[in-house]
């Protein structure tokens, strides 16, 4: 084989140059490769002939291989009808989940074409929102200041077998009547009176009664000179 047909007779260096020549001819070769080919062509008539042949091939293809084609009238409308039909079929088959997935793919593609710096900003903003939501959730679940308790709860403060209740006495009760009332259940005033006249009374719980809290509350509420008797809520 001769060197002209690019066959077995062509040496490896020339083969590497020849492999680049088509793109040297069409003007897309760049940088180091372009310079190497250009420098080589300055001194090699063999490769210059190949450039000429490639020019002729390219020119022939351009000049003779003309193909004139235009779409028929309404062609684009038919294409859009096909696209819409496919979209309708997909939505019908996918239901709400398919539509959701399609939306997700669309949004994801929009993210991909969004400039990087804007994407980073959006991610940082989203992370901040998540952090704020986490703080709010943590605060609410720790129960700080959000728990609402009523005075009529019957749990009372039952630490170490004792109950505390809040008592408001009538204005005309005597000190002797208060002492007798407390002594009957071994109660002690531990706090008060408050500005509203309420006393906090601590009482031992009796294990013999099936409802010791109820029994103690009945003891105070049944006295005609007790206006209020309610258990103190546990803190």
């Amino acid at each position: 084989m001769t060197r002209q047909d690019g066959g077995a007779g062509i040496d490896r260096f020339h083969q590497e140059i020849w492999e680049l020549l088509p793109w040297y001819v069409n003007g897309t070769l760049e940088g180091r490769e372009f310079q190497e080919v250009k420098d080589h062509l300055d001194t090699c008539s063999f490769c210059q002939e190949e450039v000429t042949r490639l020019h002729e091939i390219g020119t022939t293809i351009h000049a003779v291989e003309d193909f004139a084609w235009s779409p028929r009238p309404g062609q684009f409308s038919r294409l859009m009808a096909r696209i819409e039909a496919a979209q309708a079929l997909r939505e019908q088959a996918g239901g709400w989940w398919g539509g959701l997935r399609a939306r997700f793919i669309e949004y994801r593609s929009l993210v991909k074409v969004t400039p990087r710096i804007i994407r980073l900003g959006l991610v940082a903003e989203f992370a901040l929102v998540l952090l704020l939501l986490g703080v709010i959730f943590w605060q609410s679940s720790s129960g700080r200041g959000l728990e609402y308790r009523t005075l009529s709860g019957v749990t009372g403060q039952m630490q170490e077998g004792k109950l505390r209740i809040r008592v408001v006495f009538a204005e005309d009760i005597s000190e002797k009547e208060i002492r007798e009332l407390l002594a009957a259940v071994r109660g002690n005033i531990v706090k008060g009176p408050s500005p509203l006249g309420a006393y906090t009374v601590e009482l031992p719980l009796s294990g013999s009664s099936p409802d010791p809290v109820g029994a103690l509350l009945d003891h105070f509420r049944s006295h005609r000179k007790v206006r209020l008797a309610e258990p103190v809520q546990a803190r």
Partner: protein
Amino acid sequence: MPPDDDLALIRRVVAKDRQAFEALYHRYYPRLSGYLFRLVRRKDIIEELLNDVMFVLWESAPRFTGKSQVSTWIFGIAYRKALKALARLSKKPPEPPAAARELTDRDGPEDVMMRKEIRDTLKRALDALSPEQRAVIELTFQHGFSYRAIAEVIGCPVNTVKTRMFYACRRLRQLLPGLGIHSRLG
């Protein structure tokens, strides 16, 4: 066309902008129709193939990453569609020979004969190539792609592109100089 214009159109197509899609259609169908014809060598299926390419473009626009140029991506879709069509066509009878280019008042009888001879010779030469080699020749000389862009279109390593071109050119050199093509071009 500036590549930025194509990218802007693709972004609008992602947002299902039909006007942008139609603009892309009219911008690319002249090049794509010629490219598809030279790959499959049949005029009767060009419209169908072009529609297939544009349909895929519409559906796949959200997945275009922007790492390559839009033209490279579109020609890659067209290349794959053409290969599938060729696989289908291999099972069907061939198309009748294409009609000759219409004469004009300026064409003399010798010009007519010469152009017909050159066209027929080139057609036979290109038909002798594999579809993959034809694609490389077409994308290089007709559409001005770099070898790296061609590798993306065809989906193969750059060395494969160079090898296909090397053997395609060798084959064309064997077939074309037989009629002295280069001496007849004006």
